[in-house]
């Protein structure tokens, strides 16, 4: 493809590509997102390709492997358009039947349809599935319309037209005022107004300025950015080029986690295509703008999600943050003015420019505009990526989209915002997804991780889990975080191991507040959130550990004992074979018992027993 030299040329090519795709051919879309890859969607896609080719469907049925559709629980997913038939958990062995019956004859393969657990009935089309119905698809839904390797697919859905609009006469100030009017706030966790950052960086003195995309998605339980970067990399590039125009930068970096090899690959490929088409390089679309973007692979350090640490890492150094009284918009990468935004923030920019600020600010609440992609995981029926308008209640997300708890268990809490966030109890599920509301309640929307917890989750153990994580990930530069988090973990460990006292609860609160006030960077300042929020909303669980020496959820190993129920055990031997400590004895078809001296309380027997005969007390 030769370089697109002008805005008019882009318009013509875009229109041609859109027209070429609007024929009435059958389109089979296979989700190639992180979840579906794990369930071998590429085997399904390869089988489909083979079957379509060998049946001579070359022109009349097309196949497209896309980025994440969101409904990971149902992967591998195949959607057949134009009829919008949704097949879930498809195996390579199902492909022949799909092609023979659905593609050739327009019939439905009933057993591959989604069954709504609340009604027990199958659902024919994707748009009628409750998981998708309550969502506000704007950004994530683009994924299913394009092959991330295909620039043509992106151009066919209006790709790079926002950039063309900007370059054909919008001044940098106009771009910034559009972003300001839209109310866009940073999606990476901080929720800082994007336009404020851009305006300050534009005003900063310096010949050379930079834009950075933070794709170092380090929050455990979050994979929204992976979903966009793997599924729709050009939207991010387009957002970055527009941002660069607005602030006056001509160099950009995408800092990606190396744990996401496919995201690295897709970002690199998209950049190379953008150079080839002339969206990067010199004299972009004949406008005189020069810009290039490079990919940098992160080294796997949570603290590098913090902007100053990330910039240190880009400079090839250890990722240690520095105090923020010197702003990165003035003195950032190489000490030059730098604008850093998260993947989802950048990816929202083109649609705001194309559809207008009012379209974006029409969604959401007073101070949180637009939509947010959430990673819905944990003890909930429907897991995956979901996109909702700000203001949607947590209840809608957990119960309507998520389908409620798993295996009939009662949902107890959601953890939002990763290690910087907190746990909110089920009684607060009417709260809206909103930057400020969740922050006021001791949690945060953060980057969008939403882990559902039920009666089998111990909230004290959750606090310990995050403290352990933060202790590992603390860079060690400042005392409040290095020592404070250590002490918090020590106290919580005491509580989970039966050595806790009620005075320690007060100490936890006091210490938590001190760390929050005095730590150097965002990691340290928010580190006490998980422990403070669980103390605030689940004091009875701390109390049970401390006063009664009991873990109500049966998780904290020092406080529980395993035994086998004499009535339920049928002596099948499954637990005996599974136990790594050889702590279980028993003859075939006879009651088995656990030798408590050998038992390490690892819980493996619990997962191996088919008759629920293992008792935890």
């Amino acid at each position, binding site marked *: 493809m030769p370089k697109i030299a002008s805005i008019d040329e882009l318009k013509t090519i875009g229109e041609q590509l859109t027209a070429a795709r609007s024929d009435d051919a059958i389109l089979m879309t296979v989700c190639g997102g992180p979840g579906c890859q*794990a369930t071998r969607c590429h085997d399904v896609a390869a089988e489909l390709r083979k079957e379509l080719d060998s049946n001579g469907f070359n022109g009349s049925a097309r196949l497209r492997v896309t980025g994440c559709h969101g409904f990971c629980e149902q992967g591998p997913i195949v959607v057949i358009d134009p009829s919008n038939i949704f097949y879930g958990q498809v195996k390579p062995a199902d492909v022949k039947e799909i092609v023979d019956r659905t593609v050739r004859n327009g019939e439905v393969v009933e057993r591959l349809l989604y069954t709504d657990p609340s009604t027990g009935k199958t659902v024919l089309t994707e748009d009628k599935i409750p998981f998708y119905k309550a969502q506000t698809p704007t950004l994530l839904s683009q994924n299913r319309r394009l092959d991330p390797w295909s620039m043509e697919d992106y151009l066919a859905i209006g790709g790079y037209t926002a950039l063309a609009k900007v370059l054909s006469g919008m001044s940098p100030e106009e771009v910034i005022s559009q972003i300001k009017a839209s109310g866009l706030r940073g999606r990476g966790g901080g929720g800082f107004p994007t336009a404020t950052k851009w305006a300050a960086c534009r005003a900063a003195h310096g010949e050379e300025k930079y834009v950075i995309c933070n794709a170092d998605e380090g929050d455990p339980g979050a*994979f929204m950015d992976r979903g966009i970067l793997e599924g729709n990399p050009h939207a991010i590039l387009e957002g970055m080029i527009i941002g660069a125009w607005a602030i006056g930068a001509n160099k950009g970096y995408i800092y990606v986690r*190396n744990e996401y090899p496919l995201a690295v690959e897709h970002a690199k490929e998209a950049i190379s295509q953008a150079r080839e088409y002339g969206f990067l390089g010199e004299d972009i679309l004949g406008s005189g703008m020069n810009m290039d973007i490079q990919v940098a*692979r992160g080294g796997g350090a949570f603290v590098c999600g913090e902007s100053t640490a990330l910039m240190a890492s880009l400079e090839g150094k250890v990722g240690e943050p520095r105090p923020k009284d010197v702003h990165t918009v003035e003195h950032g990468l190489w000490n030059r003015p730098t604008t850093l935004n998260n993947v989802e923030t950048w990816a929202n920019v083109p649609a705001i420019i194309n559809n207008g600020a009012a379209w974006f600010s029409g969604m959401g609440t007073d101070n949180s505009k637009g939509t947010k992609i959430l990673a819905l995981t*944990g003890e909930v029926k429907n897991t995956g990526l979901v996109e909702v308008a700000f203001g949607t209640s947590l209840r809608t997300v957990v119960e309507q989209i998520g389908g409620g708890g798993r295996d009939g268990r009662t949902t107890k809490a959601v953890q939002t915002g990763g290690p910087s966030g907190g746990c909110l109890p089920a009684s607060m599920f009417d709260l809206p997804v909103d930057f400020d509301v969740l922050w006021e309640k001791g949690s945060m929307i953060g980057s969008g991780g939403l882990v559902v917890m039920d009666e089998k989750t111990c909230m004290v153990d959750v606090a310990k889990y995050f403290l352990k994580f933060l202790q590992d990930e603390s860079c060690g530069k400042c005392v409040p975080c290095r020592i404070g988090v250590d002490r918090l973990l020590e106290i919580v460990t005491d509580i989970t191991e039966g050595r806790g006292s009620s005075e320690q609860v007060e100490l936890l609160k006091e210490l938590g507040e001190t760390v929050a006030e005095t730590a150097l960077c965002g990691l340290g300042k928010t580190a006490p959130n998980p422990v403070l929020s669980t103390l605030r909303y689940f004091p009875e669980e701390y109390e049970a550990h401390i006063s009664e020496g009991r873990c109500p959820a049966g998780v904290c190993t020092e406080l529980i004992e395993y035994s086998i129920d004499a009535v339920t055990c049928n002596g099948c031997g499954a637990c005996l074979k599974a136990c790594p400590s050889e702590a279980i004895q028993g003859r075939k078809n006879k009651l088995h018992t656990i030798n408590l001296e050998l038992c*390490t309380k690892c819980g493996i027997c619990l997962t191996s027993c088919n008759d629920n005969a293992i008792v935890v007390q």
Partner: protein
Amino acid sequence: MSSSLDTILEGRRSQPHQLIEVLQDVQQEHGYLSREAMDTVSEGLGVPVMEVYRVANFYTAFTLEPMGKYVITLCKGTACHVRGANPLITQALGLLEVEEDQTTEDGLFTVQTVNCIGTCALAPVVVLNGVYHPLMTPAKLRALINRVRREEEEGTGHA
């Protein structure tokens, strides 16, 4: 080894800011960062060897010891933790008689954990040499390890 280091350093010599990128490539190519490789990188980029070591030690992406033929990566992200990552870690370490980040004596398996692999919807997840195994249970993990061992004994194993 030195020729592959030359290739990695090509076009990046005397550019200290390329340190992490270069180490990523060495890690990928060699499977770990040897003392010799770090010396060469230090010289090539003009970064003191102490700084190279500090960076290599700081980031979890780098290992200073060779890895086993099969690398078992156990995710301990929040979703995996809530859905039972701990029994999986116990199973793997117990079965292979190693500690975290250690390699079995026969050089066959390395067990490592990761803070989050980004496949949270199908937790708990285990990755064996880059292949994801979603919705893992201790029993499935044991079967997987035993299968690899059996294939190795029969000479049909492929890392």
